């Protein structure tokens, strides 16, 4: 159990600083600016409209340096902030420059161009670890956030992630997702499922059936996963409770039972099942009973992704000859083709904010991760190296995880939603990542 409360009660909620306005402005501009320059396929990883905020994180000071490594803990936070693509991490002297009164030397940090500054102190009380952290607006010479976190020693990484979540909340109005986990399928045989912290730490094996296991997707409460498994010799949809390891067969009909995803409220599952031998999108109950067939026609349909309001589903169909992404209303209506720019677009994943989809497109013979608005405009190509596929949004909509072979083997990567920062995270080869929800 992580306890946290503000140690500085008089943090002003009015008169938000320049720092805050700065980030809010650009966070909004990232999400909303329809730039006519991107109406066509453009590899855009250096949009000049986003200037990253210079931020410095001092090594956390520890009263028992042998037990707790303050520099190591600060590195966790620096990595979190870096991966959002919103910050420029400025390296500063390991021990923060402090003025005589104990507060940071704003003069010195300001001269270095730093706009936001994080300091932290850690100490151990028995088997408890206490982290006190502060966020400063350097220009205004003002403390923006003060937080105290208590946890067991083994949860040191988690409380630093919690601090990162709060810093993001303070600076952008939306908490970070640094406390979440990513599930994925191992890329080596047998292909078991694994989960890890979003930054690749704390790897855990979830299945042990010696078979091929694919396409894990989290339940909305983050306690269980749907996945495709060949443990009985054909691709079937299974359910797995991550904590207990309990498993159940959800759909084992003849042919394909694949790419199952929970609806946002967890009360339905969309998946691909054979209809007269052709894979189609169906909606079934969490127990596996067919509620309705959503798609029709001669195309092979797979990879459904629910809109966050549950009203529509994006999916892949090759009904026009090549795989393309279509949107269809859940409660009746015709599908609408969304993608036209590539002759191969697959793996749609609807953003938690509802405005964008991320997907895989084949461009000049290589697979790349892209985003597009739900009206089909503003397609952006976010990757440019290697072969990339299976993108999935972070629950806060600011990051995307995907599989890439650019280092040789397929590994799980994360990047910000603009692709400016792209980092491999999985400690083992993997594919088909699914970003879990925030579990409180």
């Amino acid at each position, binding site marked *: 159990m992580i306890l946290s409360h503000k140690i500085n009660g008089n943090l002003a909620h009015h008169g938000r600083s320049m720092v805050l306005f700065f980030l809010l402005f650009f966070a909004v501009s990232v999400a909303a600016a329809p730039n006519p320059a991107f109406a066509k396929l453009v590899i855009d990883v250096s949009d000049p409209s986003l200037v990253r905020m210079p931020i410095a994180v001092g090594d956390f000071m520890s009263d028992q340096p042998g037990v707790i490594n303050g520099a190591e803990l600060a590195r966790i936070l620096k990595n979190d902030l870096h991966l959002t693509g919103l910050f420029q991490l400025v390296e500063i002297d390991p021990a923060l420059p402090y003025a005589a009164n104990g507060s940071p030397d704003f003069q010195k940090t300001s001269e270095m161009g730093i706009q936001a500054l994080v300091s932290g102190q850690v100490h151990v009380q028995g088997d408890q670890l206490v982290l006190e952290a502060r966020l400063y607006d350097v220009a205004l010479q003002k403390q923006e956030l003060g937080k105290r976190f208590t946890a067991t020693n083994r949860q040191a990484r988690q409380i630093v992630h919690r601090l990162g979540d709060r810093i993001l909340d303070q600076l952008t109005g939306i908490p970070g997702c640094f406390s979440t986990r990513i599930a994925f399928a191992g890329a080596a045989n047998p*292909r078991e499922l694994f989960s890890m912290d979003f930054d690749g730490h704390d790897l855990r094996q979830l299945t042990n059936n010696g078979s*091929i296991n*694919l*396409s894990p997707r989290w339940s909305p409460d983050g306690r269980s996963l749907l996945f*495709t498994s*060949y443990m*009985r*010799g*054909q*691709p079937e949809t299974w359910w797995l409770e991550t904590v207990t390891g309990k498993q159940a067969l959800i759909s084992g009909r*003849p*042919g*394909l039972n*694949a*790419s199952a995803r929970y609806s946002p409220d967890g009360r339905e599952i969309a998946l*691909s099942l*054979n209809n007269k*031998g*052709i*894979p189609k999108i169906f909606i079934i109950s969490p127990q596996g009973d067919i509620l309705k067939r959503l798609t029709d026609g001669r195309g*092979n*349909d*797979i*990879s459904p992704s629910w809109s966050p309001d549950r009203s529509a589903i994006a999916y*892949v169909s*090759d009904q026009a000859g*090549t*795989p393309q992404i279509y949107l269809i209303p859940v409660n009746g209506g015709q599908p609408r083709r969304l993608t036209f720019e590539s002759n*191969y677009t*697959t*793996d749609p994943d609807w953003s938690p904010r509802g405005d964008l989809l991320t997907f*895989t497109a084949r461009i000049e013979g290589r*697979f790349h991760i892209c985003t597009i608005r739900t009206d089909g405009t503003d397609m952006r190509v976010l990757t440019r190296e290697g072969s990339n*596929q*299976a993108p999935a949004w972070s629950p806060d909509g600011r990051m995307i995880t995907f599989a890439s072979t650019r280092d040789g083997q397929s590994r799980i990567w994360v990047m910000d939603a603009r692709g400016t920062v792209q980092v491999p995270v999985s400690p083992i080869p993997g*594919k*088909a990542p699914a970003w879990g929800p925030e579990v409180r």
Partner: protein
Amino acid sequence: MVFGRISRIKSPFYPLLCLILLCALAAGCAPKIVKPNPPHPGFPGAYRAGPVAEQELQAVQANLKVIYFDYDQYTLVPEAQASLQYNAQILQQTPHVRIVAEGHCDERGTAEYNLALGERRARSAVNFLASLGIDPQRISTVSYGSELPADPGHNETAWAQNRRVYLRAVQ
């Protein structure tokens, strides 16, 4: 019943009777003991038919041709149709052999769509065999997408080998 009656016979001929009964058993005159088929490790529907000798399965398997596909395609090119016509002749001669049509793709695609493509390739093969008079009820489909390449290489030769439907002969 038979054994119960024999056990009550108190006679010096008892060993002889046993010997006669054993001979009868060996000759196949005794009641047949019907054993259930052992569960098949593969597709669950695969053991519905009667038992087929392992050697016969191997012989059928050795003769079945693999069906190959063009990149991104599930339609049957003339070579694939010729392979299926050849396979249909074998299957017509072995009506009690069941088939699992395994659909596969090369690695140049995304994993989930490849599952759909592999399924459709398998279905293309089944439909063509059905058009040649093979009962489609004998054939089940399994798509492996790009998960089980026949050739682990990353070149045109490997990819051409991996875009396939493998017909697996099962009991």
